[in-house]
């Protein structure tokens, strides 16, 4: 397959993820959408790695996965902390950093 197809799929998933980040109010779902965007990037990386015959892209993709895992851990930890303090789990309500 031409690489172009893979890249278009990647772009599509990325934009869907971006739209989700902007539209949803539940921080959990926002994190999920961020995962979508990361995955889209992974797809692009692996695609280019295949085209060039170079393993570097795949390694990069693995590292991205590691980072995504870490970020998810922290993000979920935050949400659990929020839940514990009985704060609303809604990004529109959490706006102390305004002004």
């Amino acid at each position, binding site marked *: 397959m031409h690489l172009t197809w893979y890249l278009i799929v990647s772009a599509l998933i990325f934009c869907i993820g*971006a739209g989700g*980040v*902007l*539209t*949803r*109010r539940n*921080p959990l779902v*926002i994190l999920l959408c961020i995962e979508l965007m990361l995955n889209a990037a992974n797809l692009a990386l692996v695609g280019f790695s295949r085209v060039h015959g170079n393993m570097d892209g795949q390694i990069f993709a693995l590292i991205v996965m590691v980072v995504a895992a870490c970020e998810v851990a922290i993000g979920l930890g935050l949400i659990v902390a929020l839940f514990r303090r009985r704060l609303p789990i809604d*990004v*529109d309500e*959490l*706006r*102390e*950093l*305004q*002004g």
Partner: protein
Amino acid sequence: MSLQTFGWLVLAFPLAGAVLIGLTFKLGGRIHGLVGTLAIALSFASAIGAFVKLQDLPHESRQVVAVGWRYAVTSGLDAKVSILLDPLSVFMMLVVSGVSMLIHLYSVAYMGGDRGYSRFFAYLNFFVFSMLLLVEAANFVLLIVGWAFVGAASYFLISFWYRRTTATAAGIKAFVINVAGDVGLVLGTFFIFKHSGSLDFLTTFGSVQDKFTHNDGDLVAGCVLLLVGAFAKSAQVPLHTWLPDAMEGPTPVSALIHAATMVTAGVYLIARMHPLFEQAPTAADVGAIIGCLTLLIAATIGLVVTDLKRVIAYSTMSQIGYMVMGVSSAAYAAGMFHLMTHAFFKALLFMAAGSVIAAMAGIQDLDRMRGFRRAMPFTFGCMIVGGLALSGFPPFSGFFSKDEIIALLLARGDWHIVLGVLGYVGSLLTAIYTFRMIFRAFYGEPNEEARELEHGHLHHAEHPTNPMTGEIEDTDVGFPGPEHHIAEWELPMKLAMGALAVLAIVGGVVQIPKVTDALHTFLEPSFADSHIYATLEPSGTLTWIGLIIGAAISATGIFIAYTLYVRRPAVPAALRSRFAPLHRVFVNKWYFDEGIDLLFVRPGGWLGRFAATTFERVVVQGALVGGSTGLVGLASAAVRRIQTGYLRYYAALLLLGITSLGAYFLVSA
């Protein structure tokens, strides 16, 4: 020890004295007086050493520069800390340190009992250091530094009794006028430096013929600005108004600063810069004319003032007018000669005046002094000696020096003859006002204080008062002390006055025309590059005529004063009413103070008030401060609206940023 070492020692001793006294000011008693006097005595000894060493050098190479360290030497600039040791500076060093030593000795006794005794000697030593720095400077930078220090020292000492408002006002007035002169000096230096490229004196003087044409515009401007500086320091018209007010300072200060040394700095400046002035004769002529004007104006005012110290102050102004006139007309040795003799007899006159004022318990009003002749014989003797020297009565020193200046002016020819004739007129007036002062204070029926003194009891006022305004004061720090010292009872004062009296009598021997030529020869290496100095000499007949006329004028003046104030005391009052308008002009000091007030002080005040209220409020606070902060406030208020606190809003902005970035790169590709 070499010449250079002596040169540096002359500077080091007064500075060390000032610092030592300043650091140990808590020590009481008269120790600081002795320390200060010792410092200056050592400085004088070093000056003598320098003099001796200078004479060892051959005649042509008697201009030695000793470099201390290089302050800012780059291309286009050569500012070093260096001193110039040549006959002129050694001469000035001797005069300054010698007279200062005697005045210090006088002050050891005179200022006794004053709560600020140590402070006085620290300031006095600092002043001597600054004056010596000024005369020893080998470049414009050090000259300006010394000039400024001397002005500062003058301020410290005029406002010495700092709780007296008249004293502090006088100090400020002196300082402001001096600063105006400083501006002239610095600007003049710049004008000259612009062309000469060097701040060093000898280099500048050597290249004056090459760098400047005759009467070059920039050189004339530079020299006139230097003259402004000289006039401010030497109290010439129109920058003279500070000198009479400076009599608020203690009498030794008046003797040292405002008679013998600081006010002669202007004369020294003109003499030192003589190559520049000879290349720009226009500026020299300005100096001569102003000197002449000053000597006449000051003499007329001296005829009518009634404060003892102010009479002597105006006479100082007048005599410096002679000196300025002399050195501006290339009579350098004569001007310096008069500087030396004037230092002697003027310091003596001030010291004697201090003694009389002490006998009057601080009152300086001539109208209240009478008949001190029998009560204070020593002071009277010194006053007579000083007065005769000032009036130019032969064979006192003032006779020879003043006559030499006038004779040289007449010999110079063309319009300088007018200056010479006016010099004789001034001489007559000098004799009259000097002896007016002496006859009024010492002759006639003894007044109350004199009678007390004859019985061996020094008069003490009930409450110490300000001599000018009559305000009641106390005698704590910041005001004069409770004790008064007169010469008859204090040995240090007697010694100092005695030494000066002897010098005033015999000081003329160094330059008796046609007999001795010591001073002229001594100073020649300094003026070797002058094309007038060596050749300007009055002819034999002119000299004799001058001497005779001078003697006759001074005798006439003394006789007139005697008639008016001793034989027929009613005449002065009658004259005053006959010439009332003229008298009013003289008493009001020719309205110079009022003129300066109108021209400078009032507009300055108005400008200051305007700036402080309107300008500050509208422009600075409103537009500049308010405007800029308002703008920043508006801008940040606008930007702040982005901070909504909504996470998704921020994410949207992020995405927008990425999109536009991508679009930019897409378009540019």
